[in-house]
């Protein structure tokens, strides 16, 4: 199916199903229950899941296959966002040209940075990409936002003002990013008993791109090109000695993953027409590295899972405050309640980074292959048990 083998086809089908059903999957608790705190099925977060999924899938094509650890990938994401917002400002709120332009600009940008950075490998490559990304951040944050030449609008972030030309915008079109008149923000809410599910245009639009990106990633992984990239990862020197020039391959991988980042940036702007410089800050670049490693570098689904987990922590765990904790433990006697709240307090709310850090440490130590390895181990455990049971049932018990 789709030119995929059975295993990849099944995986792809699962990803399609999960993307389509995400509004249900992430809203498992009734709206009024205490557990509703953990619901993640609201449009903004669902959009972030898939968009950062795209970002991480793209990063994984470079890092997972060639082993080149880029520490400046957020630069391409940021450039994509700025490109998209400029289309909104100058031409139209329609998201299609904005996203196309975002990908093109990110591609050009990644050719430039890639061409220079890929002259070195290993830690030097990482440092070069980091330096370029920080340079882009500084340019966007202050240099290119001076009153004479304001390309990025600095700290405030680039946004669309009423006074902007928007040449192809006319009455009757929504005053926000839209797909030929269908606003990205439009949401249909479905209530079923105590549950509420949100179906958001922007989410399904980004979800479609995520599926395309995922499909393309599978094809790259299974192609001769992907094999070549893996060869570079396993032994670059030997590749060179066999007379093969590896640079065009790594540059191609770099540009492809830069374009993925540009697509993610364009989509972010399409969901919310604002591009801020901190999108290019080194912590943002570090985040995608975390996503990929947490999920499982070099695996297909891993980066998406990692992106989901990090965005979930950032948006859900950071919102659990003492007030919420007190509600949870209100069934306990007063003293015990306070003890529980004090114990959990450092790990939620402003401590969400701490919890994330601990999970990261645990994953790296016990599951070097990331969450995907965790899943595989569990699957093996069940399969193992089943196999053992099957064996047991065929054994004849001796009579007493």
């Amino acid at each position, binding site marked *: 199916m789709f030119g995929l083998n059975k295993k990849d086809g099944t995986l792809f089908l699962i990803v399609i199903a999960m993307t389509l059903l995400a509004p249900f999957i992430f809203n498992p608790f009734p709206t009024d229950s205490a557990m509703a705190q953990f*619901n993640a099925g*609201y*449009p*903004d*977060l669902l959009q*972030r899941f898939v968009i950062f999924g795209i970002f991480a899938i793209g990063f994984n094509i470079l890092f997972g296959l060639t082993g080149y650890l880029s520490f400046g990938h957020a630069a391409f994401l940021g450039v994509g966002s700025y490109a998209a917002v400029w289309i909104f400002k100058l031409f139209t709120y329609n998201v299609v040209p904005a996203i196309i332009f975002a990908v093109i600009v990110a591609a050009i940008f990644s050719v430039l940075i890639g061409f220079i950075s890929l002259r070195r490998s290993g830690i030097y490559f990482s440092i070069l990409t980091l330096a370029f990304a920080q340079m882009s951040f*500084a340019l966007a*944050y*202050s240099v290119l*936002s001076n*009153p004479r030449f304001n390309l990025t609008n*600095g*700290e*405030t*972030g680039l*946004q669309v003002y*009423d*006074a902007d030309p928007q040449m192809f915008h006319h009455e009757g079109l*929504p005053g*926000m990013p839209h797909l030929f008149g*269908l*606003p990205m*923000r*439009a*949401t*249909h*809410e479905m209530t079923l008993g105590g549950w*509420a599910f*949100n179906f958001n*245009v922007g989410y399904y639009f980004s979800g479609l791109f995520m599926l395309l990106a995922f499909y393309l990633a599978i094809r790259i992984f299974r192609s001769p090109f992907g094999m070549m990239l893996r060869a570079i990862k396993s032994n670059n020197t030997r590749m060179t000695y066999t007379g093969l020039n590896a640079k065009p391959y790594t540059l191609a991988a770099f540009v492809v993953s830069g374009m993925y980042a540009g697509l993610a940036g364009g989509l*972010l702007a399409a969901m*919310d027409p*604002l591009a*801020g410089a*901190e*999108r290019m*800050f080194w912590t943002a670049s570090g985040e995608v590295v975390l996503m990929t490693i947490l999920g499982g570098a070099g695996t297909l689904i891993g980066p998406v899972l990692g992106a989901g987990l990090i965005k979930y922590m*950032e*948006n859900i765990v*950071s*919102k659990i*405050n003492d*007030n919420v904790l007190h509600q949870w433990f209100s069934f306990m006697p007063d003293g015990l309640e306070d003890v529980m709240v004090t114990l959990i307090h450092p790990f939620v*709310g*402003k401590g*969400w*980074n701490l919890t994330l850090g601990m999970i990261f440490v645990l994953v790296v130590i016990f599951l070097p292959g990331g969450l995907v390895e965790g899943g595989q181990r569990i699957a093996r455990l069940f399969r193992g048990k089943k196999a053992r049971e099957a064996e047991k049932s065929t054994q004849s018990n001796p009579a007493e």
Partner: protein
Amino acid sequence: MTKSNFTRRGVLKTGAGASAGLAMPMFFTASSAAAYTNEPKGGTVTLGFNVPQTGPYADEGNDELLAQQLAVEHLNGEGDGGCLNTFTSKALKGNGILGKKVTFVSGDTQTKSDAARASAKSMIEKDGAIMVNGGSSSGVAVAVQGLCQDAGIIFMVGLSHSNDTTGKDRKANGFRHFFNAYQSGAALAPVLAKEMGADRRAYHLTADYTWGWTQEESIVASTEAMGWETVNTVKTPLASTDFSSYIAPVINAGADVLVLNHYGGNMVNSLTNAVQFGLLDKVVNGKDFQIVVPLYSELMAAGAGENIKGVLGSMNWNWQLQDEGTKAFVKSFGEKYGKPPSNSAQTCYAQVLLYADACERAGTFNPCGVAEALEGFEFDGLGNGKTLYRAEDHQCFKDVLVVRGTQNPTNQYDTLEIVEVTPVEQVTYAPNHPMFGGDEASLGTCNPGA
């Protein structure tokens, strides 16, 4: 919504209404029956407190959160009522807002526009927050203000000092209680002229981003109007932690005043460097060298420690004021948390009460009604003296404090002393002032969402 009446006209009307409802896409999660975004249905109303809990302004954010929690308690009639007793508007009864119990959700802006918008969106889309309050840093404030305008809820700005927030980026759904860079300049300049003379030569070090530029512009304009000369203005990169290389040229330039347009950690570092270089002991042009920090905060003062002694700056509010509102607020904050509140805490506390009060007076949570109630509202008793929420740009006009680093602190919170309370007339400007976007700046129209 409406009772159906089966006359021909009635059926037609209902049909037209229904098809209009279907044709209009629903933004955010507002259901079609609601008159505005997140109309509170049950017995509670949810406020969103969006503050930096991690990142460079985390201290301020957490202080803001404490103050907001205190405000919620007071609104619900718990605790000692704080400023409800001193507030000149008596619409609030301590039974929540419009009879609904106040609950809140909090989020982490991380001092990043993106994260702040994500967090605000989750409050609006998921938790059904009817308003968003708080935030440190102007970039975040402008970004979240734009979001709330689109979503159709009220944004009560927290700590944001840039002129742009109620200048060129002003929005109909956004309101700022905190003062701004222009007002800092207008309040400081006369005091500076009085303390240091009218013939000083100033040298500016400015954080290289929007807020830094607007503040530099404001201070340069108001000090030059007093007769000062600006020797040089130097932009410093944001991430700098060591400013020594920027300090050395100050003396050579023949300047006798150093103005540090820095905030937070930047200011702590640049001031420390300047003091270590012995600038304050120098005599230039026959005058003692002076340092000015236009925007002060208690947390910065604590960070800079000894070095701020005698350094002048401006503030929105200080816990040492002696009016009734301040005393009431400091007392309940102090009793609950064991420390005096910072000026960012006070502004967020005041904003929550002002919002609640506007809802009561408007008799609705509809953002347009609330905005109307806030526009042109005059009040007193929240600690800043007589205050006006100006209708044209949604900026509060009130007295501004000029403060100085305490020479002989009596306790660890006694870091700043009040030099002068600049009267509001002196810091008032026209709504179309060129530093505030000129004639082009407009609030737009109020958006109730849905």
